[in-house]
């Protein structure tokens, strides 16, 4: 099947998957009980509570409540966030952009470093460089994110003062417009070099902290699959053609070694999104993760449902991308069934 047809077909299935996800998300969230708590205060009388329930249709059966929720979502009403004291739809886009900026930056760190380190180590199996990279990646995979983040914070913020925390300098933040919510992109759009530098500077430490674990996993995967590919006959055949080592490694071995690595990269994306919760709290990053943590603690179901829905959709899209990249790398893969 043509890749284009495949993408169109998958995109056509996407709405159904989203509806299915929404039912599951709604049902699972309701395990936590009625969402009314966040909207009540101690001064309310039973009559007022009842009125509140009716206002949010919480007096109706759960399946009917689902349809009210979906109807609201379709109209752009994602509910009222008790934590943010504002409609979810007003707060969500900015926080979502903040989290995505962090997750994408961490993803770039993880993919580029992971593949580079894995290739370097795999090509120098059991040499000194391989051992060094092994130490780096094993510690990356085994150090808990919250601990590593705090270490970075102590060394680079408290002791050395090289990197700031938070998301940007307030003055520079005020200086530019924020059409996308991605500060790096906003600064570039505004053509403000200082703001861009500031945005990147704030991004580095949380991105490295968040990306380190994924880097380690990708590097290990890349190394082992590269070593496997280097044993293959076609590597000897490529050498027998007189190709230099570098071409054999990069054009022949690395390309095929990427096939299993891409699957792992797709999986680590979920890992990164989860990690944003911890990283945002520690680095004071004003994103979804922090909001989400507060929402879970206080039973803010409108926020939780929105968050879970969006991350599920993201996952579906990332999966689609992984499938397409996979089929591009390994031509034996038949897209479709």
């Amino acid at each position, binding site marked *: 099947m043509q890749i284009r047809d495949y993408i169109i077909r998958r995109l056509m299935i996407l709405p159904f998957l989203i509806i299915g996800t929404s039912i599951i998300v709604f049902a699972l969230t309701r395990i936590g009980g009625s969402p009314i708590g966040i909207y009540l205060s101690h001064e309310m009388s039973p009559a007022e509570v009842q009125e509140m329930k009716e206002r949010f249709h919480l007096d109706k059966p759960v399946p009917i409540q689902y349809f009210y929720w979906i109807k609201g979502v379709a109209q752009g009403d994602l509910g009222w966030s008790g934590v943010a004291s504002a409609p979810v739809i007003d707060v969500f886009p900015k926080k979502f952009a903040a989290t995505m900026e962090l997750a994408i930056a961490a993803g770039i760190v993880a993919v580029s470093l992971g593949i580079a380190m894995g290739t370097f180590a795999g090509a120098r199996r059991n040499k000194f460089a391989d051992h060094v990279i092994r130490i780096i990646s094993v510690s990356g995979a085994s150090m808990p994110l919250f601990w590593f983040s705090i270490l970075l914070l102590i060394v680079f913020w408290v002791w050395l003062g090289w990197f700031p925390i938070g998301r940007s300098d307030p003055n520079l933040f005020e200086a530019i417009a924020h059409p996308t919510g991605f500060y790096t992109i906003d600064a570039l759009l505004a053509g403000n070099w200082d703001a861009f530098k500031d945005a990147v500077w704030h991004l580095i430490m949380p991105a490295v902290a968040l990306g380190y674990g994924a880097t380690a996993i990708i590097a290990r995967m890349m190394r082992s699959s590269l070593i496997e590919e280097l044993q293959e006959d*076609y590597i000897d055949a490529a050498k027998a053609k007189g190709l230099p080592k570098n071409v054999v490694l990069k054009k022949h071995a690395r390309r095929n070694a990427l096939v299993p690595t891409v699957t792992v990269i797709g999986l680590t994306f979920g890992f990164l999104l989860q990690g944003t919760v911890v990283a945002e709290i520690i680095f004071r990053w004003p994103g979804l993760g922090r909001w989400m943590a507060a929402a879970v603690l206080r039973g803010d179901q409108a926020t939780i449902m929105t968050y879970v829905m969006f991350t599920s959709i993201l996952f579906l899209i990332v999966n689609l991308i992984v499938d397409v990249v996979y089929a591009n790398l390994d031509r034996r893969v038949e897209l479709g069934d």
Partner: protein
Amino acid sequence: MVQTTASNLNNFSNHLIASVEDLKVYFHSKEGLTHSVDGVSFDIIDGEIMGLVGETGCGKSVTARSFMQLVQTPPGVIAGGKIRFKSKKTGNQIVDLLSLTENQIRELRGERIAMIFQDPGKALNPGLTIRTQIAEVFQEHREDDVFKKAKIDYVHKNFIGAILQKYIKQRTNLIIKLMLLVPPIRAYKKKLDKAIDKLVIEALAETQIPNPEKVMERYPHELSGGMKQRVMIAQAIACNPDLLIADEPTTALDVIVQARILELIQELQKRHKTSVLYISHDLSLVRKICDRVAVMFAGKIVESGDSDTIFKNPVHPYTKGLIKASFMTHERGKLEEIEGIEAT
């Protein structure tokens, strides 16, 4: 190093293309050192098909791979010996293949010495098109031909020429890749690509592949085993090498395809006057196509000579056994056995 070899190369007769002398290749394994090839010597006469016969694991493939320095070290160790080779292109200069540097041997690989591998399904990269894989041989060794065919005549002479040369030789980095997108350079690049296409089509047509234009756009898994082996052969003879090493090229194929591939190799060998080192465990096959044969057993050559003579009057018991086993002249179901030699 070069001088010492040069003085030792004097006794190299004129009619030879290559000569293996006391080749020793050992492998480190858990049980200790395995003497995989233990003092092998034989000559390949210019223009002949030389057969190297022996059972699986007797060291014939390792011998073949030593010609191109393709034995992995470690775990392999080239413990001694010489492989002298006469490179016809560079004025019959005689070199010792084992003592060449990485870059020197790379110039010979694919250009003067080429190899056909046992399993074409594994020896072709599954992720690249046939075109890309055959093109590499031309790109690496026939840069001038590509430029000539594209009618671009300023190699090395200026900036654009330097970029195009890097492109052809696959030594690109990100900056060069970006520059190749600039319109005037891109036009040249397209011309070069077309020229390479033509060379690839010619090479494929040489091996009687129908529709080479279509085949070259395919990936290996879309072709049959026989087709893949033809592609491998096209790739090997692309630069018209002096010596073609065929490492059991028909073992992975079914019988009818085997016969066709054999015919093809024979025909190409006659047309291009290439010398061939044909490695096989199949005696009847070797007898059919080889002028001379060396029989290998446990890392040593036990018998060698004219193929007809060896088949008529085998001297070594192992050769006798092999011949008997392959023709089954004795009663069915009983295999000839000989006492093995313990590998040390």
